[in-house]
């Protein structure tokens, strides 16, 4: 893939340098990366200026160096009995377990509903009703049914991730060009052949896009899931620190959450490229 990508960029940058002779020769760093870096730099500088000048109450917006110090301290000494990596590990375990379950159940369900009209008609009322429900509304009930342990947390994350994946899988399967299906059928393909050699490869890219969105949804309910009776996890750490007005820990936790989310998404994209290079 990387070979292809560099083939794409070389002619463009060569073309640009030819047109503007005064243009700086920095073709190795794409413009988009430069612009993104600029955004981050402006944000950080703004944060530093606002806090250094004392325009913001330090209780609400601590200085960048205070947040960094909180990061270092949590990495080495930990926060309330667990280091940052342990907190992160607890959260990632919850997210990845719930997300894997959502994929294992959501994708087959979506494929079945996409291929069979009857299955769609049977299950649609359930999915359509449940899809717009806010997951937090369900959480109180989940805690009552499943208790305060891991199962209610995993269920909440699972339920947050499921509808996105089911719906995008249905869409992916129904948007497969019927010509492919007929062509395969005329060559004597069985249902099984159709599923594994036509539907899944053709719908794969859209399913993966749905998985990425679903992972994002799972991520957004993490803090909520860890509010009830957790004693480790990034979400719990943020919640607990907020109770004691430790805003440096809160902001540090949010940054770690955000960056982890970006990394997870990059991994998902990498997997997509590996599995489906035709996309």
């Amino acid at each position: 893939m990387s070979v292809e990508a560099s083939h794409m960029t070389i002619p463009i940058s060569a073309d640009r340098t030819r047109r503007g002779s005064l243009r700086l020769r920095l073709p190795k760093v794409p413009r988009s990366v430069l612009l993104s870096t600029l955004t981050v730099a402006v944000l950080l500088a703004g944060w530093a200026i606002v806090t250094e000048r004392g325009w913001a109450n330090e209780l609400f917006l601590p200085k960048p160096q205070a947040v960094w110090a909180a990061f270092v301290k949590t990495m080495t000494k930990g926060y309330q009995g667990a280091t940052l990596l342990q907190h992160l590990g607890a959260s990632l375990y919850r997210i990845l377990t719930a997300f894997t379950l959502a994929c294992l159940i959501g994708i087959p369900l979506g494929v079945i509903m996409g291929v069979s009209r009857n299955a769609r008609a049977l299950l649609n009322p359930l999915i359509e009703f449940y899809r717009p429900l806010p997951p937090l509304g369900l959480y109180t009930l989940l805690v009552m049914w499943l208790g305060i342990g891991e199962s209610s947390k995993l269920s909440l994350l699972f339920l947050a991730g499921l509808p996105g994946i089911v719906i995008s899988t249905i869409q992916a399967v129904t948007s497969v060009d019927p010509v492919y299906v007929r062509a395969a059928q005329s060559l004597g393909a069985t249902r099984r052949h159709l599923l594994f050699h036509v539907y899944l490869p053709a719908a794969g890219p859209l399913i993966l896009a749905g998985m990425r969105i679903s992972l994002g949804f799972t991520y957004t309910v993490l803090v909520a899931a860890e509010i009830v009776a957790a004693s480790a996890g990034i979400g719990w750490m943020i919640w607990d620190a907020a109770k004691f007005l430790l805003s440096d820990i809160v902001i540090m936790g949010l940054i770690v959450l955000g960056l982890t989310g970006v990394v997870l998404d990059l991994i998902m994209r990498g997997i997509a490229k590996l599995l489906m290079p035709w996309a």
Partner: protein
Amino acid sequence: MMKRLIATLAVTTLALTAAARAEDKPAKVTVGYLNLVNAQLVTKHLGLLAKEMPGVDIKYVKIGGGGDMLRAIAGNDVDFGGLGNPPTAIGATRALPIKGILVINMLDYVESMVVRIDKNITSLKDFKGKTVAAPFGSTTHYLLLQALKDEGVDPASMKILDLAPSDIAAAWLRGDIDAAWFWEPNLGKTVKSGGKILVTSGEMAKRGYPTWDIGVVMNAFAEKYPSYVDKFIKAECDGIEFWLKNPEKTAEIIAEELSLPIEDAQRMMKGTGMVPCNEQLTEEYLGTSAKKGKFVDTLVSTADFLVKQERLPKLLPRADFEAFIQPAYLEKVIGR
């Protein structure tokens, strides 16, 4: 010409004075009250605050615990609030713009540690390997850790969970937890379903760890409308007096406010210590502006404890906690 100028000046002055007067009256007063059993419910139920502040829109907001109250204060969502001593120590250390003006209640057995009877827990030493719940950052979380420390029991030898009081009751009924230190009105539900009281907050007070809730006012509000702070205190003092003089009617009010059977309300009332307003100015409580009382000691030792728990960055000098306690408004209301 001169006359006209003087007349204009006079009119302007009048108008300005009137404007200043109008500013002295807030359009809306928001009172955040904790979900506890105390005389604030009486004040609210009898509309005593509205009587003191005619024409002001009064809004009561029920707030689950100290952590939420701190957030409400930090977010400037309330004008008056109530805080237990640990959140107060946190707020004072983090320089939240509030002052403590009134004793809301002293905590006796309205806050207790409940343990499951079938688990054979007779002392804190039996807690090893058990699951214990308390709302983190609250008075009971503080007392739980203090009690464990005094008995020499390592908190790491058990599972201590952070749960809101209503979640504790639900988890208890499901059998997820073996013990919990929290407060009424939910405490009674756990005692009724297989629980017994092991330690009360009142017993801890006798051991030197008093816990209480203090009424606070936002500094900005107090600067802008000082007379309304007096009115607030007056209303709350009337509520406390009503509580002390009319226990039967008070029980009815509490029962109605919290949707409880009347016997439960009566029991809970006995577990709460209400302090008459004139007594609040004694050494035992707020003290006077000239000589602050024991509340300062409690705040200093609570803050010290929280620093050791790494929940607070540093212990402030005593003077900062003295500055937080402001008996001046109450002194004015009582007429000293």
